[in-house]
């Protein structure tokens, strides 16, 4: 049955920008992607990466194509349709002792999205990005052909697709290797940290002993307290440490409506950050942790993006290359505070080696991510100032989070862009597959 696209509002997780776009949605991805200019999954990229370049360019919603196609319990190799979600994989596999090799901070992502963003997680310093564990992809390229690409077949296309923001073709199926885990529970340790130097030293030290680490930073604290926060470390619990019962399905709450703009002003953000910091009153805590609380603390609140109200929000995430001192991270936080930045949540992580994806985000160094509400005039200026600093430090930003970066800044921080573009042009000379992000940053026709 030929499908008709339907009109609906399309936005990223930051709820800005919003497009009244056209969508194809079907259990059959091959038909849904036939006339689409872009595929999108659960829409958890923050900015315009999953939005059409123009409102009348249809996009394919992949979320109904979520079947698991094959699984080998000896090797852990799983093949699934691109719309399968991490939530679904965790429900099916966690209690049987398997977990994805790399998990981002939310379960509401599809496999296709995990490849397109080449997601990283708390174990980046050990296991790299998700793309390192992908064996093969089934892709519909711009001329309509459907082909399989991997390290041994159409390798260039494979590497451009990993972290390629969906711009090389429609990802239809993903084959990757699941990880055996000792138990479905986490043994975690968290530590209250007084300042930035201690935080970065703590991350580096923890990376030697723990497979999973991440830091939360109080974005309001300044001066001697700059960079204070909580350092979280974890590993899969051994069977004798873990409770006998598998982790229960956690109840979720829904944010019922858009909060008024006043809800997130300086005092409430200050109060939140202060409360989060001092909730961890003891210096060190450790014990068994529910995997959902460890990996996906924000997932318990459905639609939490509504808290930011009508104007929406954005996240800025950059990676600053390794330096002998903590200068880059300090200069970044100072610039953020001095430019009037007011973060609600800030996450810090030391990254391991660069991945094989041509535009994959992480590289060795310190990654900092922060959420803040959008202010029509101030936010673009703030992002410009942050980007200038990131360029000066030799770092780069994560496109999955980006909404406001200008093309000149992007090109200055991405020398890898030319190689990616060459592959993209080879497979798609007219840039038929494009997004609002590629129109903004790469000059694709709107």
């Amino acid at each position, binding site marked *: 049955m030929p499908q008709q696209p339907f009109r609906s509002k399309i936005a990223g997780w930051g709820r800005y920008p919003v497009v009244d776009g056209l969508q194809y949605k079907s259990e059959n991805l091959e038909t849904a992607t036939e006339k689409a200019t872009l595929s999108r999954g659960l829409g958890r990229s923050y900015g315009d990466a999953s939005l059409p370049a123009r409102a009348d360019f249809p996009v394919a919603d992949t979320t109904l194509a979520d079947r698991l196609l*094959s699984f080998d319990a000896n090797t852990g190799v799983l093949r699934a349709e691109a719309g399968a979600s991490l939530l679904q994989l965790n429900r099916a596999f966690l209690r*049987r002792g398997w977990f994805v090799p790399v998990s981002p901070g939310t379960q509401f992502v599809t496999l296709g999205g995990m490849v397109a963003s080449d997601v990283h997680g708390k174990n980046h310093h050990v296991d790299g990005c998700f793309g390192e564990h992908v064996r093969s992809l089934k892709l519909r390229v711009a001329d309509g052909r459907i082909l399989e690409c991997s390290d041994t077949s159409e390798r260039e296309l494979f590497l451009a697709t990993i972290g390629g923001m969906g711009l090389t073709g429609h990802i239809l199926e993903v084959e990757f290797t699941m990880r055996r885990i000792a138990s479905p529970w986490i043994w975690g340790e968290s530590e209250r940290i007084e300042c930035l130097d201690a935080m970065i030293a703590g991350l580096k030290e923890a990376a030697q002993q723990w497979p999973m680490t991440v830091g939360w930073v109080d974005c309001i604290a300044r001066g001697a307290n700059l960079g204070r926060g909580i350092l979280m470390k974890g590993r899969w619990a051994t069977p004798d440490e873990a409770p006998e019962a598998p982790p229960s399905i956690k109840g979720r709450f829904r944010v019922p409506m858009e909060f008024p703009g006043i809800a997130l002003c300086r005092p409430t953000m200050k109060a939140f950050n202060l409360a989060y910091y001092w909730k961890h009153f003891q210096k060190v805590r450790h014990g068994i942790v529910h995997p959902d609380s460890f990996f996906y603390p924000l997932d318990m609140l459905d639609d939490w993006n509504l808290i930011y109200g009508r104007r929406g929000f954005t996240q800025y995430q950059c990676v600053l290359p390794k330096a002998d001192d903590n200068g880059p991270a300090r200069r970044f936080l100072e610039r953020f505070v001095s430019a009037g930045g007011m973060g609600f949540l800030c996450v810090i992580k030391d990254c391991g080696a660069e991945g094989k994806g041509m535009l994959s985000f992480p590289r060795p160094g310190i990654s900092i991510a922060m959420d803040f509400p959008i202010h029509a005039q101030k936010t673009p200026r703030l992002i410009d100032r942050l980007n200038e600093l990131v360029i000066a430090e030799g770092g780069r930003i994560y496109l999955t989070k980006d909404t406001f970066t200008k093309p000149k800044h992007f090109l200055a921080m991405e020398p890898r862009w030319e190689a990616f573009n060459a592959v993209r042009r080879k497979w798609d000379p007219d840039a038929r597959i494009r997004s609002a992000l590629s129109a903004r940053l790469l000059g694709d026709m709107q």
Partner: protein
Amino acid sequence: MNAVVFGASRGMGRAVARELALRGDRLFLVGHVVDQLAISAGDIEIHGAKAPVRTAYCDLLDPGTFGPALDRAQQELGNIDAVIVTAGLFGSQEELEHDPAFAARLLTANFTNTVLFCEEARRRLLAAGGGTLCVFSSVAGDRGRKPVILYGAAKAGLSRYLEGLDHKFRSAGLKTVCVKPGFVKTGMTSGLKPPPFAGTPDAVARRVVKAIDRGWPEVYVPWPWSWVMRIIRHLPRFCMRRIGF
């Protein structure tokens, strides 16, 4: 539990089958798109259903396929504890008004043939001493409403039939579960604007499995729809004539 699912390739049927698979039930799938059915069987198996998950051809538009498909299921599973029917056609009121042939097909599939399938299932379940017959009707059958006149009429008939089965055969061990979904975001409804209280197939599936386990004769999913429909059922005619719902 050993269950037969008619309609597991897509939408809510897929979600209910997965929910049962996650707890390790034994499943048998029947449907009419044979290659898709095989892929769905693989998916259900990977989700945790007892292997192997087998399938049989069964077409809602061809009642002659019902008996043989259920016989195959019985051979495969041994004893059937539950038969779950989510298969059905959908068309908007406009489409159906303008295409009498489609209207005839939808009315036949969603009422006559669904009832005939249930009759085949009922006979087999009763002969084996009882079981659960869980069938997806719709809130559209609760009241004559402008956007779902034809679709709703077939579902109204189906709901009454299931109610009657429950009254007559519950004492003999046949539990009938009539599921009345409100708006659920599936492929069937993609393109329609979701109203408030629109549900996801997963949430619906969890509640349906609970209803099957407990033998609820009627279940609204997602649950707020039971209150919405309670109001709609009691609205006077002059109101129903005015509103577009």
